[in-house]
């Protein structure tokens, strides 16, 4: 997978069953669909076990997930990055739209 921000190579890591893609160049991270929820659930479990000594404000929800609910996809679907479509985000796709 290619990083949509800097086009670096993204490496896949598995952490407690959560698939994370991290860019080897800019270190940016992508989460697959539903994985933010998994992380939030894991965080909730952890908070119950060991409440933090200090109260932090709740982190803002992932804005793209909230603003653009994704239509369902198949099990092999790509993580949806949002905002990179229309043939400009992926070189070659505009051509692909018109060919067999």
């Amino acid at each position: 997978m290619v990083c949509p921000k800097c086009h670096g190579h993204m490496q896949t890591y598995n952490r407690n069953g959560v698939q994370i893609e991290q860019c080897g160049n800019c270190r940016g991270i992508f989460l697959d669909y539903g994985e933010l929820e998994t992380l939030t659930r894991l965080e909730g479990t952890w908070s119950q076990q060991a409440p933090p000594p200090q109260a932090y404000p709740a982190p803002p929800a992932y804005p793209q997930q909230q603003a653009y609910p994704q239509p369902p996809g198949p099990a092999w679907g790509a993580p949806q990055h949002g905002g990179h479509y229309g043939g400009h985000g992926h070189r070659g796709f505009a051509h692909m739209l018109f060919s067999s």
Partner: protein
Amino acid sequence: MTEAFTGADDALIAALAEHARAARGGERGASDGSDDDTVVVVADRADGTVVRVADTVAKAHPPGTDPAVLARRLAVAAHPLLRGILLPPYLPPTATSSDQEAPFGTLAGRPVTVWPYGTAVDRDDPAAAPWAAAGVLLARLHTVDPRLLPGPLPAMAGPAKAARAMARLDKAVAATGGESAASRTVRAAWERLPAPARDEAPHEGPAALCHGDLHLGQLVRHTAADGRWLLIDIDDLGTGDPAWDLARPAMWFAAGLLDPDAWDRFLTAYRSAGGSAVPADGDPWPRLDVPARALAVQTAALAVAKAALTGRELDEAESELVTACGRIAALG
């Protein structure tokens, strides 16, 4: 399938222009000679050469086209049940008077059909692509009862085309000195497809009328239909599982290439218009999953084969498709 496509020669293009001019004369009486007579090559690919003269186009179908099957497909496109769905051809007057005569000419062994010219989707503005119209047209196509049409039409060739793409990848791998990481990934995804999707077992279930090769180049806007969009290209028209007609946009969406909003407009329009390929509501993926996987494999296989034969790297979109094949291969 030709390995290297060299393009049509000038003689074929000139002859196609003559077919277009002759049909124009036949359609609207003697031309007054004042119209724009410029010859424009609209498409020149292995799967057909299309030449435009003013408001008419002539298409040379690929060598090896079965004339009897093409005649049936033409008759379907001209059928009243397909009005407002498929662009109707210009048929020579003899076609209606005699069943024995083929309703088209030939050039160098290739059948030639003649059509009204329609305006294509703007390639430089994919954001304005008529996804909703594509959904509605497919839905209407799929609800036409094939038993009411001239036929029989051949089976929808989706699985056969996927198998041909894999054969092409095999040839490219053999010609370029072995498997690459990309070709191995595509092959692993292919091997996980069920037998009917690999054209190794027949399709079970009801057979709908299918376009067989949907993409944005298959829509034109035509004045004869009040400027509404119509489907073109009858060369893959057949009967089978209509979900294969949705599989290419579905695969683009699943691979992260097609804007989710465009996919949503296409699918919502398809369902609203009563399309039979997916249930009216709920999760469409139980029906779309296998054909979309097959289209991902097919498209990735052709891209990897072409890139290997020309010694170029995969572009970004092609790489995403290979990555999608990796995820398909990794499914349990």
